[in-house]
């Protein structure tokens, strides 16, 4: 019977995925933690074991080969020594540093800031952080349905450290987490938890390549009327591998805005799962990715509208050259009753030569009748007419090309609300372009 044959094939595919997981877990042990953390970790491990790790045949991994992220150990990744000034340096902020996934107290500010409670996951064993136990792994678990995200469960189970941040008021300055990479073989797991109470506001800045391989999860609960801004620059190390996932749940009239700049990186998969559960909320996820050569960058976004009059925007731009690959999978799910949803999704790539490649799968799934959703995905080269127009005004070819690349990325950059932060990102991008002149 074909049904049985199919069932058997599925069972064997699953058992293969579980074998891959078993290999990964062979040398790993669950980190020590308090009762609540241990419970969560065990739960995540059980969920993970039921799923196994992704297989190349999985629909969700059609564009991105999971092997580098699955393998028991990371591939060696050389540490890149940047000549640029440290990012966000001119901004008054609370700085927290992790080196290869290990907290660096001597480089970090005191974890104290008005309107915020900051703890470390590694200290969860000794502290009863009641709000964290209601959140840790909870949004991640919700995000596993309808699509499995095994690496995120792996993170919840094995994250050795991370920040537990609860925001109760309007915070005077951003929290800035730097993830430094110093070891060529480090395999780091960090799990950050953020809870913005009703009406609270926080800007989170993140930067750095973190490790040879980095698995990072961020869970964010944005309370009613709360506002969360997130700007991240994933470091420039060429050989690093990264899986990151953001899980957010948005309350009524809340705002979630996240922007990521990715320059270089052999493998980056950035997942973002947002659930809009309160009316009139707004979620913006944007990214700019710059790849040259051995570069694979994957944005995978899933936004669920489960309340009325919510707005979501996805704006992703990728600049690719010399064999670089960019992928995008973005879905807007509008549940029954989520009337007046305004969903917008745009993913575009600028291919600077014909060896670069962009793969996109935009999806809309809509069960409400009064909604406005749009999506668009394009792939193109530099516009020759624009290039000529600039050159005819005396702008040399390299400068004109850079100007057009910046223009292409501008729509994503505009998603950064703060001008200083937007400027910092633009400078990074500009630096990246200038270094590639004539290459």
């Amino acid at each position, binding site marked *: 019977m074909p049904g049985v044959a199919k069932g058997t094939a599925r069972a064997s595919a699953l058992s293969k995925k579980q074998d891959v997981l078993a290999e990964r877990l062979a040398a790993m042990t669950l980190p020590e933690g308090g009762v609540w953390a241990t419970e969560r970790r065990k739960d995540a491990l059980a969920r993970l074991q039921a799923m196994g790790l992704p297989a190349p045949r999985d629909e969700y991994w059609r564009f991105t080969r999971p092997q580098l992220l699955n393998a028991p150990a990371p591939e060696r990744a050389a540490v890149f020594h940047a000549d640029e000034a440290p990012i966000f340096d001119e901004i008054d902020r609370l700085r927290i540093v992790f080196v290869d996934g290990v907290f660096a107290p001597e480089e970090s500010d005191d974890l104290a800031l008005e309107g915020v409670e900051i703890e470390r996951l590694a200290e969860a064993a000794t502290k009863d952080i009641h709000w964290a136990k209601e959140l840790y792994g909870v949004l991640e678990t919700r995000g596993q349905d309808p699509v499995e995200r095994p690496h995120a469960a792996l993170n919840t189970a094995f994250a050795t450290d991370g920040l537990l941040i609860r925001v109760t008021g309007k915070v005077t300055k951003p929290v800035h987490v730097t993830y430094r990479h110093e070891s060529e073989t480090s395999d780091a797991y960090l799990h950050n938890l953020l809870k913005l109470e009703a009406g609270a506001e926080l800007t989170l800045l993140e930067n750095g390549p973190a490790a040879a391989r980095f698995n990072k999860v961020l869970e964010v609960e944005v309370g009613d009327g709360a506002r969360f801004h997130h700007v991240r620059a994933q470091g420039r190390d060429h050989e690093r591998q990264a899986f990151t996932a953001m899980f957010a749940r948005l309350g009524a009239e809340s705002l979630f805005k996240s922007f990521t700049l990715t320059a270089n990186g052999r493998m980056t998969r950035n997942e973002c799962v947002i659930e809009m559960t309160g009316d009139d909320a707004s979620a913006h996820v944007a990214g700019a990715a710059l790849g040259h050569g051995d570069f694979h960058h994957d944005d995978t976004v899933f936004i669920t509208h489960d309340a009325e009059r919510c707005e979501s925007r996805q704006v992703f731009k990728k600049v690719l050259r010399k064999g670089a690959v960019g992928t995008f999978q973005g879905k807007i799910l509008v549940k029954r009753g989520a009337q007046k949803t305004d969903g917008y999704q745009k993913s575009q790539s600028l291919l600077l030569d014909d060896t670069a490649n962009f793969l996109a799968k935009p999806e809309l799934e809509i069960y409400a009748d009064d909604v406005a959703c749009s999506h668009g995905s394009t792939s193109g080269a530099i516009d*020759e*007419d*624009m290039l*000529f*127009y*600039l*050159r*005819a*005004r*005396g*702008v*040399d*070819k390299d*400068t*004109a090309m850079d*100007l*057009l690349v*910046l*223009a*292409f*990325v*501008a*729509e994503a950059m505009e998603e950064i609300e703060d001008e200083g932060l937007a400027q910092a990102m633009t400078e990074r991008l500009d630096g990246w372009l200038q270094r590639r002149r004539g290459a």
Partner: protein
Amino acid sequence: MLKINNLHVQLEEEDKQILKGVDLEVPAGEVHAIMGPNGSGKSTLSYVLSGKDGYEVTEGSATLEGQDLLSLEAEERAAAGLFLAFQYPVEIPGVGNMTFLRTAVNAQRKARGQDEMSASDFLKFVRAKAKDLKIDAEMLKRPVNVGFSGGEKKRNEILQMAMLEPKMCILDETDSGLDVDAMKLVSDGVNALRDGKRAFLVITHYQRLLDHIQPDAVHIMANGRIIKSGGPELALEVEHNGYADILAETA
């Protein structure tokens, strides 16, 4: 100033000859007009002179003050003093008009060995020039030509011309689609740049523009050649009788 000699041009992509031996000379300080039916090669001439890709020069030459234009990159021609006001100015989303103008001005200053203009000097400069053309701050802030009306685009071309202070200006149908007021602004802009040395090549279909900008000579282009040249009266003849007579007499 501009000397074009027996210029033959075909498309790079297909075997199609567009310019079939253009001869033209515009001396310093003069305004010459080119008129001619649609498709005769006027825009192609302006593109080839300013260095657009996609054309192949198979014969002939073009020089600006004795310098071979055809061997230069587009940006080098601009730095040498050539300016083309486009028939269809290009929209560039994501690049602010002000950024564009500043980049262009500074690129040319740099190419000519001058210092870049300071931000505040540039601002004063652009504001003064923009005011003459009734270009407001809003238009300077918007992305280049995006959402501009036809008239605004053409005024923006003249603004660029005024700021870059070229030696040789080619205006390709800058009058098309302009209402009477915009026509006046544009011609005033051009006339303000007439200083006895700067030369102009004005491509147009209408006498209207030439009422404002008095040409020293008028050339008729058809089928890839200049078929007739004369004084301002030639434009009036075209205005009254169209091209039929001229085409017939030169056929």
